[in-house]
């Protein structure tokens, strides 16, 4: 293992020159370059690592240059992940790996970045049926990391199906598939024999959005598919794989120093894909446990730091763990090991594979979340292959904070009312009953996150005088996008269920499924309250016209004209008629108070009786 010292010293070489800057002749534009072993050309699709962000962004290089002060810059036209725009629009995906090209004018269209932020190449295939677009073959689409055919106009904030002549100043011919590019790159010839081998490498950079690798049985299919797909990215990973196997053979070292170098040869030997064989062999040998995590502690010869363990393997066994590798020392480059599915992308924190032994001491703050997450998934011992999906049984999961990061904050969150209405229209609204009324909305969001790994916005319905003191109600909207539906289902349901769920189900049925699911498998919330879910029919605020109890004498009204029609607030005096009437109302409310009290008392008794029967706590 070669160890590279300190900060990045990735090899870099300029390629073909293009011209010099008009105003400042010291600026030199280029058409291609080699960085860290990969050749990049103008209009390539790349991953970029943004400092502080755990996951890389997807972009297209539209300008490459070196400034007078020898700084290398690239201008990147962005691709949006569906999750980034789902906050604002309902997105129906044509393909589980669909992304959207930015277009139009405004913030978020393109940015200038240092070249060093590039974290690898990405294979994005344009599947637009436009005449100008060389049509990709089915194989191309299969092997692509992402596909796109629509754009997202950042100015108007809508999705456009048609692509105009120019986007961000560049001709569309560079947006469409380049004629020469529709074939897998050499790097990707990858053959892994063992399907069971957890994806690891190949999926390293590849974000498999379609499902969460929760169950082993599913993985193999996945893997197999993936295996044939080109590995996009960071070829470093390939090597990682290789090395990993060696490394793993030795036991894991406990010290995760910042410099985590898990990935061994991130060196430029392109075209060498690790044979996962070893890895797999290894992997199976290794006790699943995320001791693998400790991998994070492995030294990475290339100096790449991996924040989180690269857990290649255990991933699959883990639930919804998204491994991301984070580089600390090398802030610009991030090797992303992402075997597991990119779950509903709101969860963008780095998560270490859950590690019962919690040895990783990754100093970033993200780790804290990881740790907690680890703890929560702790009990789901990954080594239970037969139980895909949730571990049922007596281990109670601790509900931890939902990772807060929400990358798609660009457009802000819609006010609750509006999004409630939207969600209701699209069937994404779920009503949870029987929560302890003391919970706050944030806690409910966490519960949903922990139980279903879905993010949602939740709101505890405020109690009024008539609400039952025994349970609280909560409305939550799941921002389910189609592609994640499959993941969610697979995650939640037992093997036999849903495996065949069509991945393009509309949100509504997912939610319904979710409710049905809850019928099957109950979620217990502390204080032993089974959670009841249903699809509610909320009524949205609307001015009511009638209100029992306010009487108007018509004659008077018309006499005094509207301005005096509303009586001022006052306490009425005992010598008026209204006082008498008010007394009648008082009487009535007292009576109803009595009813309510009795009703709730009785309900409480019934609940208690049943609850006593709970065997475990």
């Amino acid at each position, binding site marked *: 293992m070669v160890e590279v010292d300190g900060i990045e010293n990735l090899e870099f070489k300029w390629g073909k020159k293009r011209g010099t800057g008009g105003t400042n002749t010291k600026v030199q534009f280029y058409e291609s370059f080699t960085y860290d072993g990969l050749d990049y050309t103008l209009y390539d699709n790349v991953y970029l690592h943004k400092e502080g962000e755990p996951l890389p962004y997807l972009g297209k290089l539209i300008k490459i240059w070196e400034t007078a002060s020898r700084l290398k810059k690239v201008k990147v036209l962005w691709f949006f992940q569906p999750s980034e725009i789902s906050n604002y629009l309902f997105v129906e995906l044509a393909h589980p790996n669909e992304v959207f090209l930015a277009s139009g004018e405004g913030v978020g269209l393109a940015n200038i970045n240092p070249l060093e932020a590039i974290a690898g190449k990405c294979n994005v295939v344009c599947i637009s049926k436009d005449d100008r677009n060389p049509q990709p073959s089915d194989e191309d689409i299969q092997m692509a990391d992402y596909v796109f055919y629509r754009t997202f106009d950042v100015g108007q904030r809508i999705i456009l199906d048609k692509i105009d002549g120019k986007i961000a100043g560049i001709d569309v011919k560079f947006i469409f598939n380049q004629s020469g590019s529709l074939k897998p790159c050499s790097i990707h010839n990858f053959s892994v024999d063992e399907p069971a081998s957890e994806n690891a490498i190949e999926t390293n950079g590849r974000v498999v959005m379609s499902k969460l690798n929760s169950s082993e049985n599913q993985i193999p299919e996945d893997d197999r598919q993936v295996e044939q797909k080109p590995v996009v990215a960071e070829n470093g990973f390939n090597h990682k794989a290789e090395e990993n196997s060696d490394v793993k053979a030795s036991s894991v070292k406990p010290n995760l120093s910042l410099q985590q170098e898990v990935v061994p040869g991130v060196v430029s030997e392109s075209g060498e894909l690790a044979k996962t064989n070893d890895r797999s062999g290894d992997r199976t040998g290794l006790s699943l446990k995320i001791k693998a995590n400790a991998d994070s502690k492995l030294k990475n010869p290339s100096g790449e730091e991996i924040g989180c363990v690269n857990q290649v393997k255990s991933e699959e066994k883990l639930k919804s763990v998204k491994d991301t590798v984070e580089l600390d020392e090398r802030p610009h480059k991030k090797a992303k090991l992402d075997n597991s599915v990119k779950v509903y992308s709101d969860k963008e924190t780095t998560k270490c594979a859950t590690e019962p032994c919690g040895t990783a001491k990754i100093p970033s703050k993200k780790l804290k979340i990881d740790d907690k997450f680890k703890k929560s998934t702790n009990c789901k011992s990954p080594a239970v292959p037969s139980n895909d999906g949730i571990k049922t049984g007596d281990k109670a999961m601790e509900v931890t904070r939902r990772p807060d990061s929400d990358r798609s904050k660009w457009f802000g969150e819609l006010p609750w009312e509006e999004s409630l209405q939207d969600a209701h229209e699209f069937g994404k609204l779920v009503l949870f009953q029987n929560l302890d009324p003391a919970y706050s909305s944030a806690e409910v969001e966490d519960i949903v996150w922990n139980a279903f790994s879905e993010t949602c916005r939740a709101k505890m319905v405020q109690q009024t005088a008539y609400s039952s003191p025994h349970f609280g109600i909560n409305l939550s909207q799941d921002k389910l996008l189609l592609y994640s539906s499959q993941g969610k289902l697979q995650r939640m349901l037992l093997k036999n269920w849903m495996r065949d769920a069509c991945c393009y189900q509309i949100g509504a049925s997912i939610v319904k499924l979710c409710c049905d699911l809850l019928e099957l498998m109950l979620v*217990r919330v502390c204080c032993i309250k089974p959670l009841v879910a249903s699809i*509610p029919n909320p009524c949205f605020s609307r001015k009511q016209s009638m209100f029992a109890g306010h009487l108007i004498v018509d004659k008077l009204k018309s006499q005094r004209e509207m301005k005096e029609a509303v*009586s001022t607030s006052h*306490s009425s005096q005992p010598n008026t008629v209204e006082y008498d*009437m008010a007394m009648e109302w008082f009487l009535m409310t007292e009576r109803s108070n009595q009813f309510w009290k009795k*009703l709730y008392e009785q309900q409480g008794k019934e609940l208690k009786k049943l609850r006593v029967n709970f065997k475990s706590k």
Partner: protein
Amino acid sequence: MESGKQNEYAAFEEKVRRTVYLDNLSPNVTESIVRTALDQYGTVKSVEFIPNYLEPRNMPQCALVEMEKGKQAKVVISTLSEFPFMMSGMPRPVRARAAVAEMFGDRPRKPGRQIRICWLDTADPDFEVASKLKQLVKRHATETAVMLKHQLEKEEKLAKQQGETLKANYKKYEMIDSLMADGAARRLARCYNLRVSDDSGPSTFH
């Protein structure tokens, strides 16, 4: 971090103590009306209406009014309970109560509270119990809904009844008024030798 949260929660609890929950508000009531109405009892810091998502549409509005001091809140509550207070319309009085934490929409988490969840398998013995509980809860919810409906109906009935009484009374007054106005009463009085005047003393008959 923890202490921060504790403080936040303590502040929230304090706010709860200072807040009055108002009920039976007419839909025409706006924030400014509430504010001016309760200003006589103290300083109103904020008024927030509780949106109604799940209950039947005709429910009267409710609001949370935060007063400056807990004592002021108490005063409001006690006064409104003793004397009928009308807001934007008569005669239905506004009801005031002490607010409870659950009434607030955006409450902070309670620090130190750990929630644990777990999925139950069908085979688990608790599953049965839990499903019974679930059914019970659903039943309770429907019971509550029925109660509410019932209550609303009763309220409407009362209102209608009062309305009619009022109308009848008003008619009587009107009639008397008009009689006085157009002199019919005086004429009749002369006819029967009764004196009709404002300061009517015992009638003389002669």
